[in-house]
């Protein structure tokens, strides 16, 4: 009773294929599983947060990419979506939430304010969240259109798919975290 599952060409990892089974390396399988079930933590502070609501709503529907279930607690979150301006008062809170996220974790910085401080080059705004936490994908725009957000999510899925299992234990990853002063 083997149903032929046709995975789209570019998402299909190399591997031995037979009647009803598909053998590939562990990294590929884990990557495929992680990529298509990213639970985002919507760290929505300002205008980009409202645009994220539009992305989550029925018209642009983020759920098509496996991110239906938003997790507001960092414990079950895979993807920290930082959306909106992060002021200096908000910095320690962002770091705390990032550190309390479960590994493996990715960070998506949505909008100009989160990525570089945007138009608010003022005394109270943190000029880009990559000063306090490592960021994987930046989405330009103020606020980015929902299509751009979906493109950012696809890029994060690309990272998750090809990351493999050993990266989070590798010394380079440890060195990068030390550079940010994160345990």
């Amino acid at each position, binding site marked *: 009773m083997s149903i032929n599952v046709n995975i789209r060409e570019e998402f299909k990892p190399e591997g031995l294929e037979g009647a009803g089974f598909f053998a590939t390396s562990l990294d590929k399988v884990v990557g495929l599983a992680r990529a298509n079930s990213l639970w985002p933590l919507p760290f929505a502070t300002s205008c980009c947060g409202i645009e994220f609501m539009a992305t989550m709503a029925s018209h642009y529907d983020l759920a098509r990419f496996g991110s239906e279930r938003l997790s507001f607690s960092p414990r079950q979150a895979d993807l920290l979506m930082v959306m909106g301006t992060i002021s*200096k*008062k908000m910095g320690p809170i962002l770091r705390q939430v990032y550190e309390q996220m479960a590994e493996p974790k990715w960070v998506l910085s949505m909008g100009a304010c989160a990525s570089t*401080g945007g138009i608010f*080059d*003022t*005394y*109270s*705004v943190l*000029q880009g969240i990559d*000063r306090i936490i490592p960021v994987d994908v930046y989405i330009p725009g103020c606020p980015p259109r929902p299509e751009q957000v979906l493109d950012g999510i696809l890029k994060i899925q690309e990272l998750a798919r090809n990351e493999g299992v050993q990266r989070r234990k590798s010394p380079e990853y440890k060195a990068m975290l030390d550079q940010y002063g994160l345990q």
Partner: protein
Amino acid sequence: MHQSHPQTTNAAVQQLHDSVLAFLQENVPGAVISSHIDYDFPLFILEKSHTIDALAALKSAQSMEFSFLTTMCGIHYPENKGAEFALMYQLHNMPLNKRIRIKTFMASNDLTMPTVTHIWRASNWMEREAFDFYGFRFSGHPDLRRILNMDEMTYHPLRKEYPLEDAGRHDKEDKYFGR
């Protein structure tokens, strides 16, 4: 190049201005330093020590009843010596739709002002914001601390001498911006 535009003085605003002026001169003598009309808003510049009595009278008096504090903010005039800082109160008599603005000046060395939280409860956070931005000390304020900035901030950012930009930014060299 720009011609100064005539101040719009329609009759109702003029009449409001005169009535409030008369009321203030009679109830709180010596309070009004000067007054004029700014684009449909009568503006009264009051002497600092009488401001609180004037505001209380404007709210409680039957003829005035400015029971709604629309907004309140601090202003920094670094160039006029001896009166570098100003506080602006904007009052609104909703039933009769009468709106006036009160301004009072003070020198930069004694930025103290009695609080109006007992007159209008809405001024609690407005005064905290004025303290946060300019450093006004509101005596009698229930809980005067910074509201918008970080508590560890040492200076009052809205003063003209402080820069807008955050010092940590090093990708915006002045030469790219013709500064």
